[in-house]
């Protein structure tokens, strides 16, 4: 509770870190803000060529299916990598000023969120261009995004202290993320592994429920069924609890290792 009040006091700092991150990200590329919209579309284009002509997935309107998965994945993956490093990157501050450390993972996840929201624009364009069925279920999307954000924050807070204590965690997580990319039905329909021994792994992968809650209102034009919703909420609460615990436990030792 006290931490929450403390963080609230530093809200302007969090916002400053978010805008600075966005500025840096877009200053570097010639296409600026356009790039964050273009990049997922290009990835989708590649996937479309590979999976709707070379290996065929029997799935209706594959571009929308793939793009919704990619947007979720980009947000998750980038936020994890950046927030994992956020404490080490700000070592110069943490050794000299008593700042509540949680502001760093929080601000990186928030700037990832802004990117995700920007990338929804081309998704909307694609929905319209392909004549995809759109319903009032889209209004549920903010809730889905909130769940995804909180889950990502929990995971980021879990990893940020670890990467301070152990130098090779970053490499391990990079490999782990690649594994999760394939174990989550991002670019393929879950049904293709049905009946194989991989199915349970993919089915019980915690990321899957978060992804499906995000994808349901977009692709299937439905409010996520209770089974998806309850599982994703459970996973999110768990991630936040573990993240909070890991962070709190290591906070006092972090400045000694930076």
């Amino acid at each position, binding site marked *: 509770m006290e931490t929450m009040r403390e963080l609230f006091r530093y809200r302007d700092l969090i916002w400053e870190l978010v805008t600075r991150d966005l500025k840096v990200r877009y200053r570097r590329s010639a296409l600026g803000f356009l790039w964050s919209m273009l990049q997922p579309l290009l990835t989708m284009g590649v996937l479309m060529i590979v999976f709707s002509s070379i290996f065929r997935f029997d799935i209706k309107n594959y571009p929308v299916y793939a793009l919704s998965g990619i947007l979720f994945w980009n947000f998750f993956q980038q936020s994890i990598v950046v927030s994992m490093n956020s404490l080490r990157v700000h070592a110069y501050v943490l050794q000299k000023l008593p700042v509540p450390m949680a502001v760093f993972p929080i601000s990186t996840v928030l700037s990832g969120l802004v990117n995700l929201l920007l990338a929804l624009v081309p998704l909307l364009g694609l929905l319209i261009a392909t004549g995809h069925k759109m319903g009032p279920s889209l209004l549920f999307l903010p809730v889905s995004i909130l769940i995804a954000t909180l889950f990502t924050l929990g995971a980021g807070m879990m990893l940020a202290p670890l990467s301070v204590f152990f130098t090779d965690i970053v490499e391990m997580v990079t490999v782990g993320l690649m594994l999760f990319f394939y174990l989550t039905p991002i670019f393929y329909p879950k049904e293709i592994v049905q009946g194989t021994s991989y199915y349970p792994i993919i089915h019980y992968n915690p990321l899957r429920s978060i992804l499906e809650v995000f994808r349901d209102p977009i692709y299937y034009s439905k409010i996520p069924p209770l089974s998806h919703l309850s599982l994703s909420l459970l996973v999110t609460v768990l991630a936040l609890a573990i993240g909070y615990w890991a962070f709190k436990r290591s906070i006092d030792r972090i400045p*000694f290792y930076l």
Partner: protein
Amino acid sequence: MSSAIAAAPVSPPFAAAPQTQGEEEVVSLDGLSLCYRLAQQRVFSFKEYLINMIRGSLTYNDLWALQDIDLKVCRSEVLGVIGRNGAGKSTLLKVISGVLKPTSGQRRVAGKISPILELGTGFDFELTGLENIYLNALLRGHSRVEVHGKVDEIIEFSGLGDFIHSPVRNYSTGMMARLGFSVATAWVPEVLVLDEVLSVGDARFLKRCHQRLEAFREAGTTIFIVSHNPLEILHHCSRCLWLDGGQIQADGTPQEVVRAYAVSAGDDETVAMLDAPADP
């Protein structure tokens, strides 16, 4: 000359401190110790860590940077901290500032604390001076609106002129110190912590710093100063602490403590200077 003899003329902690007039305590440290676990506190790879854990060879050297420190500092006191390199001065200030948590013991600070722990405290070298004013003040827990109201004054005080628009990486140490001091002292804190910040400014800026410190003291701010310059301690401080090996070696008036330290360090010049005014 051994330090035990040198310290002898100075009375034990607190007894001689003339400021303890039953005033309001702002900073109080009780039996505070801080330990650096040297071997362990370097960053391992997870692989190394596992191997060491299995081998049972996760050994480390404990270095007690602060040992059983008891210290009470009141409103308006200006406490100088002196001692050799590695005596624990900077660690003490980091603990008081809340950057490092003590291994054991209690730290209590009443009110807002504004630390300047090193030159360029928490600056992002790629940002301009102006951007750093905002970032630094926000990192110190101020709001954007508060900074808006103070930013002109901060620039004015720093005397950096047009340099405020160039990246901090182009600044000299003196310019960085000016900017750091200007931001950290733009608001009157209950506690101000200065770790060797006043040693690099030019004479004119130093004079302004001194005026500001004096104004703060009158406003009731408690000030901690780490310095290797005996004149600075004698000029500003109402009380002086000598740290050695992480312990309080002496605590008393600046004249007494600075002299005792100078004697132990073989700093004859300072001893002579301190003794001189006593001659008629």
